[in-house]
């Protein structure tokens, strides 16, 4: 074996080690965005009134919190509906 082949051999690795992280990443992102959104909405509703004075007399915590919740739901929905998830389930069913 030449030096270069030996090097290639050391660098070569199995194509897939089988861990599918994609789904978990979707749920992870959705979870954090939903939690942050919920905190902002709750603080926007229950927190002191001065918070709206910082930006244009607008309750940014409430509204951006609601947007984050909506966005988190979209990510969650897409993760649930993902073809990869269905494929993973089918594999388990067989």
């Amino acid at each position: 074996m030449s030096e270069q082949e030996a090097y290639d051999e050391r660098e070569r690795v199995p194509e897939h080690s089988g861990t599918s992280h994609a789904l978990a990443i979707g749920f992870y992102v959705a979870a954090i965005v939903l939690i942050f959104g919920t905190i902002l909405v709750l603080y926007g509703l229950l927190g002191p009134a001065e918070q709206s004075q910082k930006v244009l007399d607008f309750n940014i915590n409430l509204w951006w919190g609601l947007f984050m919740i909506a966005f988190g739901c979209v990510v969650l929905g897409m993760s649930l509906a993902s073809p990869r998830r269905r494929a993973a389930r089918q594999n388990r069913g067989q």
Partner: protein
Amino acid sequence: MSGLTLLQLKVSVDETWVDYLIIVIYFIFVLGIGAMLRTRMRTSEDYFLSGRSLPSWVTGLAFLGANLGALEILGMGAGAAQYGLMQAHFYWIGAIPAMVFVALFMIPFYYGSRVHSVPGYLKLRYNEATRGFNAILFAIFMILLSGINMYAMAIVFQLLLGWSLTASIILSAVITMGYIVLGGLSSSIYNEVLQFFLITLGLVPLVIFALIDVGGWAGLQEAVNREEFFHVWADTGSTENPMAVRWFGIVLGLGFVLSFGYWCTDFLVVQRALAAEDMAASQRTPLIAAFPKLLYGVLAIFPGLIVLTIVPNLGQGGGEANSYNMAIPYVMANYFPTGMLGVGLTALLAAFMSGMAGNVTAFNTVWTYDIYRSYIRPDAPDHHYVTMGRIATVVGVLLSVGTAYIVLGFASIMDYVQLLHGLFLAPLFGTFLLGMFWRRTTPWGGFAGLVSGTGAGLVLYGMELWGVITYGAPMAGNFWRAWWAWVVCFLITIAVSLMTRPKEDRELEGLVYGLTEKKEGEEHAWYKRPWILAAAVLLITLALNIIFF
């Protein structure tokens, strides 16, 4: 209220327990996922590339997430406060064309050759000397970049807690070390994707509300009242523009050398594309990242212009608390009430911490595989190298504490980062380009070119420090220095190659463009084809250059 109001700035920080709660929740999640994943990372391949099993939307967003470090958020905002809208060149002539080039031409090589790193490619294409020289430079480069991320993290803590810079740097070191030791690195792809969303969700409302407040684009121009700050190309016929550089300096130095050098050879980002599940997904990775990257030309640049309406003399003396680097943190503190402020600052901290973790991972990959395994202990079992990687991580964090202070010597981290890119990446890009597209390039030609290009960059910088060469703005120096370092590398490589013996074609298969069997990724959906995505993103880029001309 933090110590900032004492500095007589017009910015007040209203942080309360909600902001800390948000930051704490973020850290719990990040460490939790890291601990969960750590048990699943058995081989070193898993550890560094997540087993090459990810779909392209994940690797694409992680690719961008890995790029959204201190440079992106603090640096671009700082650059905009310093140079105005011309800073957007870093996106619309810089990043995007280079990302397209990487996707179409570079990824097939990296993916096909199955090396962990740029030094790995250099070893196969050139020789041990070239690889060794680059590995050592790269390790130094990563520690310097890691220091920038640590400094960035420290100024967020400074803003939030009102501590001194040193105390904030130590706090950042402790937190980053904890993050890495508890397994944060094994989840770096997870966190980069998350961070992309958090940063976007933090910057979008900032830009929207700030723009409404100043009266839109027209109101912003009026409030800043510096005509030259609102054009990207119009004033570049002469050096009478904020960056003091003509259009061809921008195109050659930034558009070609700095950007291509960064995106083609910084394997911190390239590594993300290599984690994709197949060749097609790998090629799509930089293109998927390019679309949100376009948007960052607005999200990261506009706050840097907006800050000038709040603190008009930003960067004009007043010490470190009034430096350009404070642009984005100040705009956040000015517009965000407690709650939203927590989300914004969490996004910043997340970016800096994982940016730093990314630098440190790259440092430990190069150290472990390209220096330690190659020269010090070649035949140890796999777990030995994983352990060595962890030790390298700890040492890397400690060294970064020192390099964080170097940042204080520069007007903005943007100037500093581009200095580093010009010194470390510009010559390397010359070596890569010739190695990949000219099969006559010889091993010693590559070595001589890389060494002399790096040397040329250092000599030019030395001459600027001594006042032999002067530029109207630091950025002009960065562009030209990068260009000339590349030219020297390019010419010396060709000259020495013509005098030395090339490798046999057989040895260069899969390493040189003309000698590589192109494995086209199977892709049936037309909207996923690389050429279609590339054309779309380039058209939008062209339109943005015209709109903001």
